């Protein structure tokens, strides 16, 4: 019998170190990181936060009277004692007016965008998932409402029923849900053929569960981008309605109404009644547009830098 050579000693080589395992990066975290790299977007976010604080927390810090007119202090220029931005034609402090006027603009902007998104998302998701005749009919309804010049209908309703924050938000929301509906329908059409939807269907998910748990969360990127643009459009729409004279009136304020009143003093050279208000509108709308553009870029996987 041959001598069985003993096997060489077992030399188990350790597996090479894999290195540090980083924290799992979820899709949202990557998007947030991408967003924060875009300096303009961060500036836009800062501007928006500043205006929210300015309009809602400002009046708590800076006390001014925008309800009782003071005819001894009419049309004072900026720098007058007690009135950093001057006063308007009824003696109201301009800075206080900016703060309270902005409340209406921001409230209508966010509320109208919220209404539009909720209605539009549900409509688009149901339409996209259902398909067939129901889908065709629902999209024809969207086409019909899209053809209606929305500013005209807003003005007509405002003339007849008066304007409050609630009525303006409802009517603006009632006409701007169309674009999110179309976008969400497009996303749902892309998503419904994916495997996870088929898996959910096989597992017995009903239509509502599919919409709520699977389709809408995955379409959330498009929805969020659209929300920011809806807010910008709603604030512009409110300023148009206010400028034409159908916005909120005393004792409420809104920026469009302030601009409209200020225009009567243009030839007198009272610039502080016009340009600060206009600058506020432009800054808020620009901030929303910047945030929306950056969100669109950061949620698009193809554009992401590694």
């Amino acid at each position, binding site marked *: 019998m041959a001598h069985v050579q003993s096997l060489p000693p077992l030399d188990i080589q350790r597996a090479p170190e894999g290195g540090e395992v980083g924290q799992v990066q979820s899709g949202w975290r990557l998007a947030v990181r991408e967003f924060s790299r875009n300096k303009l977007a961060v500036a836009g976010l800062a501007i928006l936060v500043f205006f929210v604080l300015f309009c809602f927390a400002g009046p708590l810090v800076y006390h001014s009277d925008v309800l009782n007119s003071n005819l001894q202090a009419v049309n004072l220029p900026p720098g007058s004692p007690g009135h950093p931005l001057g006063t308007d034609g009824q003696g109201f402090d301009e800075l206080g007016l900016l703060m309270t006027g902005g409340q209406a603009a921001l409230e209508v902007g966010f509320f109208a965008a919220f209404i539009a998104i909720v209605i539009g998302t549900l409509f688009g998701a149901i339409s996209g998932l259902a398909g067939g005749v129901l889908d065709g009919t629902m999209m024809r309804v969207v086409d019909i409402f899209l053809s209606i010049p929305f500013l005209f209908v807003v003005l007509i309703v405002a003339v007849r029923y008066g304007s409050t924050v609630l009525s303006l938000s409802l009517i603006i929301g009632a006409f701007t849900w169309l674009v999110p509906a179309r976008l969400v329908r497009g996303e749902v059409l892309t998503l419904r053929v994916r495997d996870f939807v088929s898996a959910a269907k096989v597992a017995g998910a009903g239509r509502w569960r599919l919409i709520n748990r699977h389709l809408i969360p995955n379409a959330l990127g498009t929805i969020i981008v659209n929300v920011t643009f809806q807010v*910008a459009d709603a604030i512009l729409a409110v300023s148009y309605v206010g400028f034409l004279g159908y916005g909120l009136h005393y004792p409420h304020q809104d920026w469009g109404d302030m601009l409209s009143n200020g225009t009567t003093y243009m030839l007198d050279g009272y610039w502080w009644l016009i340009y600060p208000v206009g600058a506020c509108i432009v800054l808020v709308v620009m901030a929303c547009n910047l945030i929306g553009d950056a969100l669109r870029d950061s949620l698009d996987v193809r554009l992401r830098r590694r």
Partner: protein
Amino acid sequence: MTTYLLRRIAISIVVVVGVSIFIFALLHVIFPSPAIVVLGVKANRVAIAAWDKANGFDRPWFAQYLHYMNGLVHGNLGYSYKVNQSVTALFGERWARSLYLSGISLLIAVVIAIPLGIFQAVRRNTIGDYTLTAAAFTVYAMPVFFLGLILIQVFALTFPIFGFEASQSTSLWAVMTDWHDMTLPIATLVFITVASFSRYMRSTAMDTLAQDYIKAARAKGLPERLVLWRHLLRNACLPMITLIGLSIPVLLAGNLITETLFNYQGLGLLFFSSLNTEDYNVLLAYTLLGAVLTVVGNLVADMSLTIADPRIRLA
């Protein structure tokens, strides 16, 4: 191609009918009958009811709708009880002026936006591109009337070069040749339109520049000027066709805000004064006109794009 065309036209007709039903129903809810306007605010209910019956306002709203649509098809847009004129006559006075203002602004804006967008794409990420993008972004975020106010302040009040009110002449030729008064309204519209058009133009031109045929043309030794002129320009203009088609409703329905700001006697100002006097027949006709033009504009945009772009294959 023809089946696609016919299908699109059929869908457009359905949409127009749907829009007209909705708008008519909306206005019927808001303003059921002009009896109070005609008879005076102190008219009693019996008189109002009698007037309604005599003029067909007590019929069910769908019957009134059919009657209105019948009139519409025959060119009768309704009657304004506040100014005692037919709506067709009111529109007839003003549509040419609105068309001129919107048309010349659109033309100038397209002529400016195309080279501007191409310039921004060719010289991307340089100072020129950044400045123009920033300017376009700021103007895009501005309400139209604020831009108009700034232009009035700078060019009509501080440096009195132009007039701050648009030409009030009733003669279209006088309006067209009055550069002193018409420059600012046209400039306001042009800036706003260029701001949005040049954004599209820039991104389309950037996409087109990345295409292989541009590379091939450059590799063949074609001078850059000809590359831009022969290849880039034609292909980058395609979205502009869609944008122009989508601007058609504004062309005729008038630019509400600009006309109000500059007091230009066009269809937009007519809408605004009808709002103030609550002249609902004019408002109804105007909104319907806007809606029909939107549908027509979409149809024209789709059709022109299909004709212009041979890559679009129709099912």
